[in-house]
């Protein structure tokens, strides 16, 4: 409650909060809001020559190259993309934090092994994994989410590892040890909060990149399949049309940007409120 009140006092955070809720509401209420069936390739959605229609009163945000209403597709696409941007990306950041912090903290064999494992995962061609999975499994949103989580955690782990190595040498960690704090406590109560800014950066920038990555992976066949919309695949399918039909790139791009940015604003504000030592850090 206190947190919420504090949040409402900051205009930026308030803006972020509103957008976040709006996007969530859009995703949930898509069937109610959407003016058209998102998959309907409408006859009047294409010009006679087969070009998509620009935004108009009939099609608020224009149509895509199959004559489908872009606005409706964006609404429904929010469902897919939020799962990717929040769940998959969230898991990636969480796992990355966990592994990175452990390998940066633990000395000896276990730490080294963990880090080498991370190196291995990193060196491993993600695209190939995606293709093999695509061929072996029935493509689905959850598989692509899994693959994204699988691929993205390693980088977070790398960064966190390096930062942790710096943190463990700070004197207050020594002080904690002298108090008898266990590894668990040192890691999660004392080191983790220092990594929050990094987590916020990766967590929020990651929303944008994973949403786009989903499109690439779906293109290779492991993710959502046409005609199911996602913000990423709307952009991806039409990116070469950015001159002929700029709205097909601009609107989904803007909504991805806005969503990531809003989560970032909320994240920054939350951390400022919960941890007033470093106001504005993020």
């Amino acid at each position, binding site marked *: 409650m206190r947190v919420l009140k504090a949040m409402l006092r900051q205009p930026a955070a308030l803006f972020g909060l509103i957008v976040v809720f709006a996007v969530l509401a859009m995703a949930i209420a898509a069937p109610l809001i959407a003016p058209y069936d998102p998959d309907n390739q409408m006859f009047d959605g294409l010009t006679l020559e087969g070009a998509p229609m620009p935004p108009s009163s009939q099609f608020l945000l224009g149509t895509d190259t199959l004559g489908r209403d872009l606005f409706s597709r964006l609404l429904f696409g929010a469902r897919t993309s939020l799962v990717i941007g929040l769940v998959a990306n969230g898991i990636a950041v969480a796992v990355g934090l966990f592994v990175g912090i452990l390998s940066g903290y633990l000395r000896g064999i276990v730490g080294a092994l963990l880090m080498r494992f991370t190196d291995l995962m*990193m060196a491993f061609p993600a695209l190939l994994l995606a*293709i093999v999975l695509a061929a072996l499994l029935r493509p689905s949103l959850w598989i692509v989410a899994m693959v994204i989580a699988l691929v993205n955690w390693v980088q977070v782990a790398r*960064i966190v590892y*390096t930062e942790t190595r710096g943190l463990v040498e*700070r004197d207050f960690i020594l002080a904690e040890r002298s108090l008898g704090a266990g590894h668990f406590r040192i890691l999660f109560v004392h080191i983790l909060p220092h990594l929050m*800014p*990094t987590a916020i950066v990766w967590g929020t*920038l990651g929303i*944008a990149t994973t949403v786009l990555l989903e499109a690439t992976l779906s293109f290779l066949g492991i993710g959502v399949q046409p005609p199911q919309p996602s913000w990423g695949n709307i952009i991806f399918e039409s990116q070469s049309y950015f001159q002929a039909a700029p709205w097909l790139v601009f609107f989904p791009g803007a909504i991805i940007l806005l969503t990531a940015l809003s989560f970032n604003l909320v994240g920054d504000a939350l951390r400022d409120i919960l941890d007033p030592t470093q106001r504005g850090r993020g």
Partner: protein
Amino acid sequence: MAFLILRRLVQTALILLGVAAITFLLLYALPADPARMIAGRSATAQTVANIRRELGLDQPLLVQFWAYLQGIVHGDLGRSYAQKTDVGALIAARIPATLLLMAAGILVEVVLGLTLGIMAALRRGGPVDRVVMMASFVGVSAPQFVVALLLLYIFAVTLGWLPMSGFGTAAHVVLPAATLGILGAGWYARMVRSAMIDVLNQDYVRTARAKGLSSARIVLRHALPNALLPIIAMIGIDIGQFMGGVVVVEAVYGWPGIGQLAWQAIQQVDIPIIMGVTLVSALAIVLGNLIADIIAPLIDPRIRAQ
């Protein structure tokens, strides 16, 4: 230390072996038959069988893998199925372009990211900070293909300042590097900003100011190194990723890098090329990380070299 490096080299070899094994296994599991891809649609079943036999694809997995490993030990990455030529040569031909783009891309991205990140941190909460933050989100959420084409359109087609495509002169590298830089700088800017804000609050920065040092020196010499650790790690990551090729940017600017080779090979299930590229980029990633690990204690002397 020499011992440490030796140990890391051995570990590197093991990681590469692991990568090779997993990749091989995955390719084996891939339900796409390279022989059939080569043979095309008109080939008879017998032609396909012949090709398969000649490629050794009828052998058990382990035999194939063993043969592959033996080749690697002798510096032989095998022959491409589709191009019927030495994979080593194919990759080697593309290494210079890849290295150049990697270096230039990372340079742009780091310089841009550091500058913007520092500016934002120094003017935290102000308009500069907001603009930088916004810009980094735009950079990160922008589709690569569109950004690349847009830059090309503006600077090569409309203004005609730079060549549109190709590889060779210094002018050629500008646009691809700029694209990569713009797309990646957002990450650096955000990370730097975040780390710098923390550092700028530290007492030792206050000390530096009390000494009357110039702002530039305070920021660059006193604050920045303390904020650099995650940045070094990120550069390490980028080295690896760029070495694996950057498909979209290479494609748009006709850059003869590894990315295009890899992408084509994946579509053709050209296993020797996929394996070769994977190993090269894995090597780059591991080396990138190794370098980051070695540099970390140099930047922060408190960290003990492991």
